[in-house]
């Protein structure tokens, strides 16, 4: 009886551990969005107003095999220097028409785009975080991706010899975009200049 109880306890314990470790995933709903040009893996958070969109062509596992995260390789990697305030606005205007931008601004929709970059600033992967009820289409996301690849440029603040991956992101909303002034880019680029002044080559 005592042994049985112990086994039962272990079973319950392991179920609880399993439940707990999966609890994070249970907050998300995964599905696929397919447009005329590409498909996106989408994950919507159940309570937060956040939906992640990533083009399904990317394989992060493979990317990480070649380019491990900077903190495991060289925690002193200084990130990237950019001059993309205006070019980012250009990307948006080339990808989403003005009427749609106004609608997005009226809906007060947020916009985050993150870039996985290698040690030389080469673009490896793009991730979007949008509102869960966004009206941005997958074709518009595809267009954004294509224009990002053609227009935005990233250079490391300090070159390193090892292969690694670091990231860069732009957090904004469509009101800012429509007004043509992205605060987070201004701030980030100011920080980049200071980092380069303090630690750059």
């Amino acid at each position, binding site marked *: 009886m005592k042994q049985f109880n112990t086994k039962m306890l272990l079973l319950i314990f392991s179920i609880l551990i399993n439940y*707990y470790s999966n609890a*994070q995933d249970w907050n998300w709903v995964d599905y696929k969005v397919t447009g005329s040009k590409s498909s996106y893996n989408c994950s919507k958070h159940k309570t937060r107003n956040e939906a992640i969109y990533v083009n399904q062509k990317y394989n992060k*596992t493979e990317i990480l095999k070649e380019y491990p995260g*900077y*903190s*495991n390789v060289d925690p002193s990697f200084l990130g990237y220097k950019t001059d993309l305030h205006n070019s980012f606005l250009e990307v948006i205007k080339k990808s989403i028409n003005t009427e749609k931008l106004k609608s997005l601004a009226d809906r007060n929709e947020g916009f985050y785009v*993150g870039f996985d970059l290698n040690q030389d600033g080469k673009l490896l992967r793009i991730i979007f975080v949008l509102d869960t009820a966004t009206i941005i289409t997958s074709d518009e996301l595809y267009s954004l991706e294509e224009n990002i690849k053609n227009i935005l440029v990233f250079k490391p603040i300090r070159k390193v010899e090892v292969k690694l991956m670091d990231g860069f992101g732009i957090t904004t909303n469509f009101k800012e975009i429509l007004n043509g002034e992205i605060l*987070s880019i201004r701030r980030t680029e100011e920080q980049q200049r200071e980092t380069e002044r303090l*630690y750059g080559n």
Partner: protein
Amino acid sequence: MIFKFTPPRIRHLAVIGVALSMLFYSCERDEAQKPNIEMLSQQAAMDLFFKDYNKKEDELRDKVVERLLAVNDSTGIIYDLTSKYGQPKWFAKQSRTTKSDSYLVVPICVPKADSVSAVFVFLEQDSTLRLKIFEASNPDTIISDLALFYQCYLFPNKEYTTRKAIPIQNYTKDYTETKCWYIFSSIDRINWNFNGVSCTEKIVYEPTLDFGLGDLSGSGDTGGDSGGGNTGGTTGATSPNTTSLSSDAKNILNNAKNKLEQGPCISQTVMGSTWNNGLYITINGSITEIARYNTMTGKLEFRDEGSITNNVLLHELLHAYQAGLYGKGYLHTRTHEFEAWLLVDLYLISQKKDMNNLTWTNDIDNDKLKLDYYNWVKSILENGFTTGLNGNSSMCTFWRNAFIETVPKYKDLPSGTNTFPNTINNIFSKCKN
């Protein structure tokens, strides 16, 4: 973060010699048994650990127990030790004092078995306490024989089968005297082959595990709000010794220091508590890490000038802060390491960095987890640690474990049972206003 390695010293060897001198029995070792402790509760582990302990029988032993209890508050070390090794036999007259060191030898028994799983040697050096663990399962028989001898001392009637040791009884009372013993082995329990003589000088004095347990004479602040800017540890303001740095390195270091001092309260607090607290900062091109901090000596080494950034400096200074809280050479657990990474992420988010600019999560192959972590750290920065059903505290264990899975180089650190970031909480307590 590194563990201090104590080089072999003759008086350390004598610790084993004295331990052996207590034994007058032939003895054997079969398979080194591991304790079979099924899901001990914290309280049950504490009860078992101190079952044989009686206060006021031995001054050093009382100090050791007091220190262990203090360290346990932040690390859960007692649960770890009990789960891994079993029950200490705190019998009297285990401690010895020399001119410079005091030490306490405690065999650890496997519950419900006539077996010793390890021998703990608590060594007091320069007012700090170290725990050296000699495991019975150590493949080096010179080391594992120490556990074997204690096993025979505690369980003299156990049947011998494959190995036994007969201490050479012609020894003097002077503990510094070389101690030697005969080793015999057998495959049939009847015929015993003489293997040779082992002496204390021959022992490679390298235990299976070696932990710092902090300052014996200190106050033993264990993670509560210690108040003020000084976290304990070294007293008196002494600016860092940077004499070995080039002028370029000094400039870069100064830039990093200024950035942290001008940063948010969390970085200011860490700087204020550690910078003028006996640091020795140097460049060491031979280290494999980008930087490391020795919690025993206060030495902070960068691999090269390029390694000096405000993020790297903040990470290492958090370890110095921990040494202030938990004592020099404190037992460094996975939680302590996670705290250093978490602090840098808190700092980065305070600088408006986003989910793609944090530290260890770049290696996570799951965007949902990355975003969840970002939101978790952001909520800690904005609200501190919160409890309740949706409190962010409930996720501390999850994220610490995710960190260890993602940055596996820290897997060798002791797990500890306390997963709550006490150090970060301590820093927040100083930033409330």
